[in-house]
Each structure stands twice: as structure tokens, then as C-alpha cells.
């Protein structure tokens, strides 16, 4: 089965074209086709995951083009990391596809939504199957395109159109660095194959500052795609897209591509002198984790809370990878995909019921939406890191690695964990407890097509973490499956687990004090901590900073260029035009009087001559006969006189 892994991205890709051209004429207006294609890919992925578990590996490469004497190869490879990613993308993706049938019901562009989703799934699967930078980059840009299309899916709304543009342009900055990194690798190593690059790193032909530079440039792409500081600003705005998109692309899979990229090219980072590249990764991840989490506290939009949560959790993954916790980072990627998709879909269910995103208008929904409430609670516990839910096992592992590696990073991560628990339960308390604050809404439980995926995802969120738990006899199964030889994780520590559980519990308790039991009113807190609140509510002024430092100069330069264009270039073009118009007028005169005159003269001459000569034709046969007779006489006289 490993040989047919190329079918996995191909099926959704075919579905994309079929839906694009057949649209509403397909069963379920295209939804069934998309779900069917991705479902088949999911079955294939499961089979492949099983085979890889028992030692199956596969790699296929073919030369696509020659660049000078260097071959540009394309190909795919199946190894544990790829198998895990295939599993996560197809399973989470299938559930979100099914959920979309309910959520996008009656949307005017319903088939197109599924076409885009299918294209996204195909691109993402292509990305994770790639065995070289070329194919990976192709998939990378394709998922970026799908992200753009889906954020701007409701392009009638200016906010959505702006958000899609912002996302595209911001990630482009990261992609530019990544492209430079890929070029650097190509020109130093001479190949884009992962194997060849890693071999070059191993043999030392690529080492020193150049290696660090390459790794950091590649990481630039990951920063853009995974919304790390300083390129995180696009992800909260991306919540303008439909909620299933937020769940699939901007929480579960695409944004994790950055983490996947770092994990995939871990050899580059690991071999950089003094782990310098890894340190960069770790600090950016740690700072992102804490900063995004704190912003999450003050957000009132339910999806934005989750968006900042996503940024924060992606920061944890980077942190995990950066502190030599290769397995921990990848593990968190997987668990996060499940529980964050769950949280988003549950949030979507709430939005579907309330027709608003503002948690301040919600309240008491636990009674009317029990399934949504329970599943969201599971997701929240998983995110906060409460055992035995998924998030606990992975986050605990990351914090443990950080503790053994660098204390500063550990404190960042631990503070982030506390804040995480706080903001997620603030959101849950606001939404589901107390009483309804909006007077216009009539909430109701969502249809089964939406709740069933929630339940399935909740089940996954509950138990998926157990594959990374330190079982007796077999130990950490996930670690044995996915690991990086040189970066072995620290052993499980029960006291440490208790500590991280305590941090999570403290966060939940704090949230409950303020928002459940309301022992301390949130207004008081806002007043007391006014400066901190201002910082948070302005999101650390990142957007303002970019507006002043990037957007305004660019706009100013663009305006100057426009002025130059309007007056100098257009002026020159118009001047040339005017000159040619005058030349043409001159030539027109020449044409009219000289050329036309000559032509008309010839015509007039022929006409005049004809007018004279036609009188020869009298129409009287006797005239002709007379001429003939005279001619005979002349000929005869000539004959006689010779």
C-alpha cells in the first residue's frame, strides 16, 4: 500500500476539479464527493499508518527537469512523521467536511466551499508527502492560496476581503525567507532532496554559520505559516472565514505546517553550531506562547479567543522542538489538531445557534446545547492540560523538556499554561454558564450532522493523548514511533506532571473565581490592572507597529510612485502619442493629395480614354464592314507595292 501513497493527495485533487465543474449537479451539491474522496484518502492513510508502525518505509523520486547539470527531482516519501500527519489531516479533515454540510447549509456558494476544502486537503497532503523542498514548497504555496480563498470566502464583507489579503501578504514575508533558504540549500548542496541535504549536514559539507543561516531562513517560512512572532498578526483576522475553515486550516492543519516543516528539517536545526537555530526557534516559540495567551484573556470574540489560543499552542510546539523535545513538539501538534478542531467546531456550533461571535452576549447555553457544552468542555480541559485529556500529555512533555533545557523558557511556558487555562475557561463560563444576556437570540442545539463530528473529535481529544503516555512495560509508544535519534526526550516525571496539573488547575480556578462565582468582578480587575489591560486589549500594538513601520511607508512610496507614474511616465507616453498624432496628420495630407491623387489620376485617365474610344463602337455592322473593306484594300496595296 505504501507505493500508492500518491493516491492520497490525488483523490481530493480530483474531487476539487469535479466539484468545480459539476457543482450543484453532484450528489449533495458536491459535499458527498468531497467527503467521499477525503474519506478514501483517510482509509488509505490509516492502512499506511499501520504499515509504517510495523517498519514500512517508502520513497519514490523521479527527475522532473534539469537545471544546468543539476537534476530537479520530485517525489514522495512515507515515514513515521508523514504517516502521523496524513492520519491527522485526513481524519480531522473528514470530520470537518461532514460538519460543514450542516454549518454551510444554504450558503449560495456551497459547492465552491467544498471544492476549496478539497483543494486544501490535496495541497496539505502533498506538502506532508513531499520528500524534497520543491514539492514541499509547491504544497506550501497551494495551502497558502487555499487559505486566502477560504478566508475571503465571504468576500462581500470588506473585513473578510481585507483579512484574506492580510493573511496572504503576511505569510508571503515568511515564504520569501523560506524561498531564500531553499535557494541557499540548492546552491550549496546541489540538490533539494531531504536525504541529500541531511547527508550534506552529516558529512559536514554544510556546516557553520551557513547552516545556521539556512535553518533560520527556513524557519522564517514556518514563522509566517505558523503565525509566530512577529508574523502572527494575520491569524486572528483570518477568523473572518467560515468557522470550519478556521478549524481545519487555521487551527488543525495548515498552521501546523510550519511546525511540521521544522520537524521535517530538524537535522538542519539540530546540527547548527551551539544549537543556535534551535535556540531561536525555542525563544520565538516561548514568547509567542505567552504573549498570544495573554491577549486571549481580553478577547470577546469567541473565535478570536481560539485564534490566539492557536497561536499560543503553536508557540508551545516550536518551544518543544526548540528545547530538543522533537517528539514532544510533534505530539503536541497531533493532539492540538484534534482538540483545537473540536473547540472551533463547538464554537461554530454556538455561533450557528446565536448568530453572533460575542461571548458577552451569550450565557447559560449549557442547558440548551448540552452536546456542544460537553464536547467543548472536553476540548477546554484538553487545551488547559488536565489529565487524562490529550493536551496534558503533550504539554507536560514540552514543559518537562524546557525545564531540563533552559529555565527561562520553562517559566515562559509555565506562565503561558496558567494563562491558557484561565482564558479558555473564561470563555466557557461566559458562554455556557449564568443566563443568556442577549435578548434577540433564540439558541438551539445544532443538527446531528454537526454534533456527531463534535462527539467523535471529543472522543479523540479524550484518548489520543494516551498513545504518548508512559505506560508500564511498553513505555511512551508515540515516542518510540516518532523520534529524532540525537534528541532523546527526558523521562516522564510524576512530580512534574503533578506540577503542570496544578498550574492548569490554578488557571481554571482563577477563571471560576472571576467568571463563575464572580467573587471578584472582572470590571474591578480591569480597573486595578488598567495599564496591563491596555497593553493586552491593544494586542501589544503589533498592528499599530506594522501600520507605522511597514504599511504607511509602503503606501507613501506607492503614492509617490503613482505621482511619478501619472505625471512623468504617463506624460512621456502621452507626449509620444501627441507627436505621433501630428505626424499622422501630416502623413494624412500627403496620403490624400499625393498618393490618392496619383491613384485617382490613373483612374481618371482610363475613364477619359474609354469615354472617347467607346464611340468607335457604333453598333452598326455596316460601319465595321466598311473598315474591314478598307483594311483589305490597304493590305492588298501593301502586298502589291512590295
Amino acid at each position, binding site marked *: 500500500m505504501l507505493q500508492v501513497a500518491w493516491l492520497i493527495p490525488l483523490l481530493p485533487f480530483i474531487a476539487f476539479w469535479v466539484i468545480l465543474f459539476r457543482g450543484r449537479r453532484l450528489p449533495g451539491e458536491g459535499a458527498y464527493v468531497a467527503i467521499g474522496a477525503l474519506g478514501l484518502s483517510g482509509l488509505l492513510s490509516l492502512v499506511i499508518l499501520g504499515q509504517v508502525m510495523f517498519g514500512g518505509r517508502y520513497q519514490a523520486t523521479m527527475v522532473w527537469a534539469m537545471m544546468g547539470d543539476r537534476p530537479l527531482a520530485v517525489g514522495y516519501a512515507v515515514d513515521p512523521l508523514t504517516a502521523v500527519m496524513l492520519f491527522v489531516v485526513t481524519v480531522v479533515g473528514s470530520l470537518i467536511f461532514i460538519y460543514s454540510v450542516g454549518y454551510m447549509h444554504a450558503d449560495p456558494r456551497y459547492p465552491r466551499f467544498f471544492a476549496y476544502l478539497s483543494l486544501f486537503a490535496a495541497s496539505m497532503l502533498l506538502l506532508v508527502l513531499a520528500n524534497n523542498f520543491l514539492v514541499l514548497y509547491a504544497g506550501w504555496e497551494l495551502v497558502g492560496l487555499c487559505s486566502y480563498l477560504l478566508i475571503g470566502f465571504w468576500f462581500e464583507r470588506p473585513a473578510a476581503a481585507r483579512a484574506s489579503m492580510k493573511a496572504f501578504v503576511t505569510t508571503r514575508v515568511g515564504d520569501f525567507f523560506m524561498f531564500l533558504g531553499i535557494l541557499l540549500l540548492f546552491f550549496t548542496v546541489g540538490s533539494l532532496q531531504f536525504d541529500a541535504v541531511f547527508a550534506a549536514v552529516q558529512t559536514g559539507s554544510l556546516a557553520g554559520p551557513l547552516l545556521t543561516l539556512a535553518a533560520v531562513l527556513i524557519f522564517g517560512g514556518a514563522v509566517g505559516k505558523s503565525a509566530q512572532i512577529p508574523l502572527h498578526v494575520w491569524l486572528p483576522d483570518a477568523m473572518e472565514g467560515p468557522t470550519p475553515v478556521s478549524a481545519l486550516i487555521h487551527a488543525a492543519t495548515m498552521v501546523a505546517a510550519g511546525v511540521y516543516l521544522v520537524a521535517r528539517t530538524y537535522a538542519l536545526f539540530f546540527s547548527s553550531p551551539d544549537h543556535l537555530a534551535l535556540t531561536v526557534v525555542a525563544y520565538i516559540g516561548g514568547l509567542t506562547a505567552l504573549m498570544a495567551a495573554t491577549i486571549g484573556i481580553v478577547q470577546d470574540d469567541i473565535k478570536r479567543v481560539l485564534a490566539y489560543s492557536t497561536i499560543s499552542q503553536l508557540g508551545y510546539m516550536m518551544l518543544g522542538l526548540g528545547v530538543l523535545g522533537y517528539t514532544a513538539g510533534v505530539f503536541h501538534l497531533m493532539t492540538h489538531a484534534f482538540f483545537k478542531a473540536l473547540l472551533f467546531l463547538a464554537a461554530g456550533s454556538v455561533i450557528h445557534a446565536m448568530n453572533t461571535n460575542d461571548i458577552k452576549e451569550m450565557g447559560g447555553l449549557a442547558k440548551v446545547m448540552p452536546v456542544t457544552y460537553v464536547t467543548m468542555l472536553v476540548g477546554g480541559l484538553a487545551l488547559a492540560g488536565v489529565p487524562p485529556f490529550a493536551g496534558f500529555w503533550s504539554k507536560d512533555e514540552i514543559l518537562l523538556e524546557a525545564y531540563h533545557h533552559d529555565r527561562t523558557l520553562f517559566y515562559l511556558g509555565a506562565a503561558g499554561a496558567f494563562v491558557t487555562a484561565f482564558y479558555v475557561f473564561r470563555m466557557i463560563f461566559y458562554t455556557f454558564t449564568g443566563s443568556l444576556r442577549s435578548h434577540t437570540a433564540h439558541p438551539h442545539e445544532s443538527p446531528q450532522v454537526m454534533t456527531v463530528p463534535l462527539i467523535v473529535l471529543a472522543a479523540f481529544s479524550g484518548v489520543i493523548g494516551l498513545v504518548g503516555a508512559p505506560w508500564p512495560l511498553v513505555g511512551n509508544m508515540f515516542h518510540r514511533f516518532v523520534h529524532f535519534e540525537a534528541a532523546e526526550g527526558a523521562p516522564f516525571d510524576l512530580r512534574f506532571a503533578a506540577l503542570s496539573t496544578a498550574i492548569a488547575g490554578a488557571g481554571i480556578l482563577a477563571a471560576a473565581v472571576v467568571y463563575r462565582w464572580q467573587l471578584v468582578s472582572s470590571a474591578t480587575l480591569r480597573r486595578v490592572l488598567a495599564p496591563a489591560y491596555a497593553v493586552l486589549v491593544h494586542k501589544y500594538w503589533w498592528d499599530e507597529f506594522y501600520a507605522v513601520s511597514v504599511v504607511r511607508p509602503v503606501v507613501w512610496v506607492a503614492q509617490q510612485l503613482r505621482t511619478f507614474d501619472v505625471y512623468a511616465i504617463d506624460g512621456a507616453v502621452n507626449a509620444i502619442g501627441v507627436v505621433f498624432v501630428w505626424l499622422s496628420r501630416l502623413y494624412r495630407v500627403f496620403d490624400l493629395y499625393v498618393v490618392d491623387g496619383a491613384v485617382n489620376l490613373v483612374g481618371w485617365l482610363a475613364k477619359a480614354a474609354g469615354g472617347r474610344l467607346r464611340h468607335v463602337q457604333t453598333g*452598326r455592322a455596316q460601319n465595321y464592314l466598311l473598315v474591314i473593306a478598307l483594311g483589305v484594300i490597304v493590305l492588298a496595296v501593301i502586298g502589291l507595292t512590295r
Partner: protein
Amino acid sequence: MQVGLTSYLIVAALLFCLGLYGVLTRRNAVAILMGIELMLNAANINLVAFNRFVAPAAVAGQVFALVIITLAACEAAVGLALVMAAYRSLETIQVDEINLMKW
């Protein structure tokens, strides 16, 4: 004195020129046909005279003369039929008034 070939040829030439004059100057189509008959007779005199004086053993000249007489009869029949048709449609047989082919 024997009457020679040249005498007959001169008579034929004069007859031919008279016919030509008629053809060139008459307005009446029938009169023009009459001129043509004169010219044909002149040609026949030539043929028979040449037969008599140049190749008396053969009869080719007389055969040609007979053929020409036959064809002259045909010509007269068709020509006169044409004159009648023209008269019927144009109501004249004055050929200088029939100039539809004029410039």
C-alpha cells in the same frame, strides 16, 4: 480570239464590288442580303472559271460552287427569317436604326 481566264475574273471582281457597294450603302436589310447574293455569285464564277482553265480534268471547282449555292440558299432562308423576326420585334428593317449594340 479566245476568252481567257482573266476576263472572267474581271467580270467576277466587278460583280463582287457591286455587291460590296450594296452591302455597305443600303439601309434595307433585304437589300443588303441581295448584295450578299451578288458577292456569292461572283465567288462562284471564280470557282467555275478556275476549274475550267486551271484544272479541267477534275470537277472540284464545280463541286465547291454547288456547295456554295446550297449554303447560299440556307443563308438566304435564315437571313430572311432573321429579318422577319427583327421586323416583328423592332418594327423596322432599316439596319442603321438597329443599333442596340451601340457604345
